[in-house]
């Protein structure tokens, strides 16, 4: 059964130095407030996993929380580069960043295998690409029926999955809708999980295109309105596209980024919108 706690408490209990952490949300429902709380609690040596690192991991990487990044597309969507990510890879600042790189299809299948309790997944992919030679978690596999050569990717089972959702009920059942990405798989593949929600309600009425995560699959639920900002929660908030554009200038420069970190993260308390 999920426990309903504050965001600070959820992060403090669930995320430990050295953990593998998956914060998921495909453009929609990105758990920014939780990411900021991880920075605020100064977690270190994390292996960060996420299909699209986006601003949230640019911030965690720049803040020095990460030792390694597992990902499939690391850009600022519609804007350009993730400068903190690039600075870490290109110049080792603030610390060298090990990378493990996949395609979206590969990452999605790795989560699905983790959720399914399998050690690997099979897909048609990667053949002929440079990713095969750079990434240990990609191997060839032969179909035992046809002899065909396919690709296997190893499963992921993060220590903690963190997602943002529209609602939970008081028992801790979680409901999200709209573009739900790979969040179900992330939570089901993880040992522990945190879900921040826009709203806690008495009961969850069924919704079109909704994913429900029963309370017994979730560790902690925290009530964090606007906890996806500058991403959004369909039917609650809108995407702050200007923020994504403005981030480019903030992240481009180490000092500007440092000031942002002080002013927007370290000097404010958990759950405040950044």
């Amino acid at each position: 059964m999920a426990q309903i706690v504050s965001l600070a408490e959820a992060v403090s209990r669930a995320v430990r130095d050295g953990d593998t952490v998956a914060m998921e949300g495909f453009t929609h429902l990105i758990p920014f407030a939780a990411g900021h709380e991880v920075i605020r609690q100064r977690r270190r040596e994390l292996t960060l996993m996420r299909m699209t690192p986006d601003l949230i991991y640019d911030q965690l990487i720049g803040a020095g929380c990460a030792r390694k990044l597992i990902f499939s597309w690391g850009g600022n969507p519609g804007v350009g580069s993730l400068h903190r990510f690039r600075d870490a890879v290109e110049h080792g600042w603030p610390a060298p960043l090990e990378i493990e790189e996949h395609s979206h299809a590969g990452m999605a299948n790795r989560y699905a295998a983790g959720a399914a309790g399998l050690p690997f997944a099979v897909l048609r992919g990667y053949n002929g690409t440079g990713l095969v030679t750079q990434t240990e978690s990609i191997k060839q596999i032969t179909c035992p029926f046809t002899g065909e050569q396919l690709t296997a990717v190893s499963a992921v089972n993060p220590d903690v999955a963190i997602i943002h959702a529209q609602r939970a009920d008081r028992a801790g059942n979680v409901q999200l809708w709209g573009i739900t990405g790979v969040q179900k798989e992330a939570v089901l593949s993880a040992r522990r999980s945190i879900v921040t929600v826009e709203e806690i309600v008495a009961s969850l009425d069924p919704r079109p295109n909704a994913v429900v995560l029963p309370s017994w699959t979730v560790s902690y639920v925290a009530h964090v309105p606007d906890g996806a900002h500058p991403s959004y929660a369909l039917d609650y908030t809108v995407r702050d596209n200007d923020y994504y554009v403005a981030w480019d200038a903030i992240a481009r420069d180490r000092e500007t980024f440092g000031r942002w970190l002080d002013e927007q993260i370290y000097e404010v308390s958990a759950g405040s919108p950044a």
Partner: protein
Amino acid sequence: MSDYTADEMMTVAAARALTDGMTCFVGIGLPSAAANLARTTHAPNLVLVYESGTIGAKPGRLPLSIGDGILAQTADAVISVPEIFNYWLQPGRIDVGFLGAAQIDKYGNINTTVVGDYGHPSVRLPGAGGAPEIAASCKEVIVIVRQNRRTFVEKVDFVTSVGYGAGHGDRERLGLRGRGPRQVITDLGVLTPDPRTCEFTMTALFPGVAAGTVRERTGWDVAIAAAPQVLPPPSAAELAALRTLTASPPAR
């Protein structure tokens, strides 16, 4: 000078490549603009599939991100990301996929991963995203990219997405089931693969583009068709429709 931009010309050329009723795997930027232009003009039944899991999205304005709410709200079906790749892209259900490129070689292989050495890149690019499997599994691929020597290179620093590999027959050898890139649409015109060698050849030019300009802006010794097709400029109707889409405030 012309009364339209290079981006507009490229977008219109890409839109023209789409026919009604096709299914189309769309990324953000020019591909999304092109697909939505086609849908709002000559191809009203074009099916737009975004990798965020929205099938049949019908946005009235161009989305800024691949996961904008308007895509889910207007879609025929919204599904998970594992499902979009496994049940929809992988089996070859999608007619056309669009790709961009930071580097592209003469066989249409694409790099969006690194400039320089993988371990010590001079520029770390965003990486693969959905591109390798779009390149592998869509029935055909259209690449949209501006043509210059930095991008059009003899050999890509990293193969993120496979075009024709080392040439004719390589896709089959690699087990890639889609037909590969059929067009590379640039700001100078359109390159198509030579039927024998699979090397990309400049077979169509935008009005006023000289062969010399093509050679100047291509990093390999590019073949140019003896009598390249001259592409008609964007019509007033095409430009108006495109500008309506792009002038709207970004979809939220």
